[in-house]
């Protein structure tokens, strides 16, 4: 019996597509303030698990609890409002919107002005928009993105796009942040900066972070605990040290390298 309720509790969760089990029997607990890694070879089901946690897919088995509340059949936007926010493996920015507007979209659920007051341009439209503008700008400064504020998101350099996606995810005001391979396509220097950034935001926003990473060495450095997924199932769980020497993990990763 745990004394402390976990922030996120995943119980026996699984999903089948047709006859294929993409993810099965996953159990997980994340406590407030943790930085936890989720690793596994390609096609292990890591992103699918994220999609289950964020409501993009509805699990065929098991249950997911966030702050003790069952998330069953909640649509993604409601889950985001409850405090789970994410980034995507293949960056999904609003390309034609400016950098600052990308962040403002994430603030949308906090907007105080209604559609009618926007159409009629009532005073609270102006105050609401101004507040969003200020908050969004604050965020961009924090991420050193304010120099790009009016550029279209699609015109940002790749590394900055990744930063913007994280900024946007944070603007949605999450307690749990899910990062899907944030370092993909980055060089070692950019990766190091990114990891610093993650440590910084975690401190600043008092966040819990679940990080998917393909590259094992990277996760080993920053995460306190690591879950390992292979063929849709958790094959190991423990500290980086335990994971490093876990026979199943070695096998899974070796297996991948051979093929």
């Amino acid at each position, binding site marked *: 019996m745990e004394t402390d309720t976990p922030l996120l509790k995943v119980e026996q969760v699984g999903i089948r597509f*047709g006859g294929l089990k993409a993810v099965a029997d996953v159990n997980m607990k994340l406590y407030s303030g943790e930085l936890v890694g989720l690793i596994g070879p390609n096609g292990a089901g890591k992103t699918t698990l994220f999609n289950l946690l964020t409501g*993009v897919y509805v699990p065929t088995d098991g249950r997911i609890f966030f702050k003790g509340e069952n998330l069953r059949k909640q649509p993604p936007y409601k889950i985001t409002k409850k405090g789970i926010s994410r980034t*995507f493996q293949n960056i999904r920015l609003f390309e034609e919107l400016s950098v600052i507007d990308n962040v403002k979209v994430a603030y949308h659920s906090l907007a105080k002005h209604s559609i009618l007051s926007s159409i009629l341009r009532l005073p609270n439209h102006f105050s609401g928009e101004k507040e969003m503008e200020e908050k969004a700008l604050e965020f961009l400064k924090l991420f050193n993105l304010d120099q790009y504020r009016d550029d279209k998101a699609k015109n940002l350099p790749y590394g900055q796009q990744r930063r913007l996606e994280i900024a946007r995810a944070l603007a949605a005001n999450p307690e749990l942040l899910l990062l899907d391979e944030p370092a993909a396509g980055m060089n070692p220097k950019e990766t190091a900066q990114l990891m610093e950034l993650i440590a910084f935001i975690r401190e600043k926003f008092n966040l819990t972070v679940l990080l998917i990473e393909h590259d094992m060495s990277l996760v080993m450095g920053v995460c306190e605990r690591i879950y390992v997924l292979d063929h849709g199932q958790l094959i190991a769980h423990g500290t980086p040290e335990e994971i490093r020497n876990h026979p199943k993990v070695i096998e899974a990763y070796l297996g991948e390298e051979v093929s």
Partner: protein
Amino acid sequence: MEIIQQLVNGISLGSIYALIALGYTMVYGIVKLINFAHGDVFMVGSFVGFYSITFLHLSFFPALILSMVACAVFGVLIERIAYKPLRNATRIAALITAIGVSLLIENGMIFFRGAQLEAYPNDILPTNKIDILGVTVESKSLLILGVSVALMIILQFVVHKTKIGKAMRAVSHDAEAAKLMGINVDNTISATFAIGSSLAGAAGVIFGTYYYKIEPLMGVIPGLKAFVAAVLGGIGIIPGAMVGGLLLGVIESLVSAAGGSLWRDGVAFIVLILILIFMPQGIFGKNKREKV
């Protein structure tokens, strides 16, 4: 017996829908494009058939084959000129282009020959009445049904037994992988358009023979309905298009028989919206998810 009579009419109409629907479904399966111009290929096929019969004095079968060949070429031309450059564009851009091509063919046809009706001669096929268990069936209907079924069987053979059919199935499954396996994707797509368009051409000649009257905008409504048939059967699935076409033809005939002949054209669209909402994958379709 009235019902059975209507059923026979429905099946004849449905087999025309099915032939057109096959082209929609094949093209959608391979390039994920709703080829709006497909109904107009059907119209062009009908006119080619008409001119072969009236000017070249061909009989039914040579006219059918000539029309199929002409439409195959026409379909490939459309694909090469209008659709190929857009293969990597958004689906909406491709759809708008398809609408543009459709309008161009219709109005080009009106521009060159006028909008007036043309009537197929009524002696192309023998019109004996055959009595089957108290139901009078025109021999023409049977022949048309036979031709449609034969074409569908040939299509099944082509898709499943020939090299080009295998290539088509491979490309529709995964174009990238097919390319890596040495399949010429461009040619396979063109072949798909050729086969689909030739079936539409055949449908055009059959339509003319059966309903006589043809005109430049004749392809619009049957084209849309054939698309409905393709969706009904599960888009991208060849047997689905056949079943969907026949089913739609029968539904329409039964609605007409029930006294709603003015509503006949609306039924297809009501079926469409119901199917899209409640069974978007169609009768034979598999549920697919968007990759995140």
